[in-house]
């Protein structure tokens, strides 16, 4: 039988602290459900050869390494325009890594929930949004549908910050549940439109004439 381990600070009883004092608490690491790899896409490399533009920054499988990484990267709001940050499952020995590309066999049949924010409107709050999205991924906040979440891509562009939460398939029950959970993690005081676009559709549009827009398969609204 598989088990779901819910680790919550709020459940700690009043006596819990006494036990931990006997341990060197600073040395306890918290294992994640799967490993993850964080990538940086360099805009200059992307123009030359997109397929090789994503560079590994770190593969990790503990909460502590996740934060150690997070504290030592340039915030998304200050990242050079044209860059992407991506976080996808795998990279350590526990599972095959899922590469941040449509072509990866784990992504090919899926799609992505896409959310865009205007740079002028969102400003540095985009860093909080990105952090929330990273946390719902590594913290496994998607319940039963978590296994269909492959990763998250954050793109810093001239006028927009864009997020994509990539899924393993485009099944409605999976994708809508994942979308609803993402919606909860987004800021309460902003009007947000979320669109799910399959990678196949995205690929079709990328090969079509300029001006052709991707048709979203599902749409969700916040506020």
């Amino acid at each position, binding site marked *: 039988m598989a088990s779901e381990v819910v680790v919550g600070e709020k459940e700690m009883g009043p006596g819990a602290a006494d036990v931990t004092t006997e341990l060197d608490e600073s040395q306890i690491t918290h294992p994640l459900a799967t490993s993850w790899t964080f990538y940086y896409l360099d805009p200059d490399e992307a123009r030359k050869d997109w397929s090789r533009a994503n560079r590994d920054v770190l593969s990790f499988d503990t909460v*502590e390494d996740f934060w150690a990484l997070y504290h030592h990267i340039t915030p998304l709001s200050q990242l050079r325009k044209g860059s992407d940050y991506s976080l996808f499952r795998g990279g350590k020995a526990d599972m095959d890594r899922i590469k941040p590309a449509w072509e990866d066999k784990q992504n090919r049949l899926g799609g992505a929930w896409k959310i865009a924010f205007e740079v002028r409107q969102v400003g540095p*709050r985009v860093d909080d949004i990105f952090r929330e999205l990273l946390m719902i991924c*590594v913290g496994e906040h998607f319940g039963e549908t978590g296994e269909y979440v492959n990763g998250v891509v954050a793109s810093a562009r001239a006028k927009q910050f864009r997020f994509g939460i990539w899924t393993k398939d485009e099944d409605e029950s999976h994708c809508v549940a994942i979308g609803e959970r993402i919606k909860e993690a987004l800021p309460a005081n902003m009007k947000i439109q979320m669109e799910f676009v399959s990678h196949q559709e995205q690929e079709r549009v990328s090969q079509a004439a300029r001006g052709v827009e991707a048709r979203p398969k599902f749409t969700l609204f916040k506020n």
Partner: protein
Amino acid sequence: MGSVQTDRRFNEIREIPVRRIMITDPSQIPRDLASTPNGTMYCTTPGGTRIVYDRSLLLKLSCSPMTKTPPSNMKFIPGVTNGIAASPPRESPALSKSKSPSKPEAEDPQFEMDI
């Protein structure tokens, strides 16, 4: 169990039987990454074990001393990674409040790239 998965844990479409274990203290988390509380092994559990960390604990752990230095195997990429710890994220309950001190953004980057 009909089939046993060997290398990939996420490729079979069926309900995973779930048993919830509530962790009340960090000492209940095994140090060994191959095992999970109650001794479940990743490698022997079809569907695997999902470990869930709620938001408040994640934010609390973000202040751990172990997060103050970059992971030893982190790649150094100029302009992207740095060796100085940023201030830990605020413990604000929601995203509603926006931080005021921020540099004005450069609105005209050299180029625009769309994917």
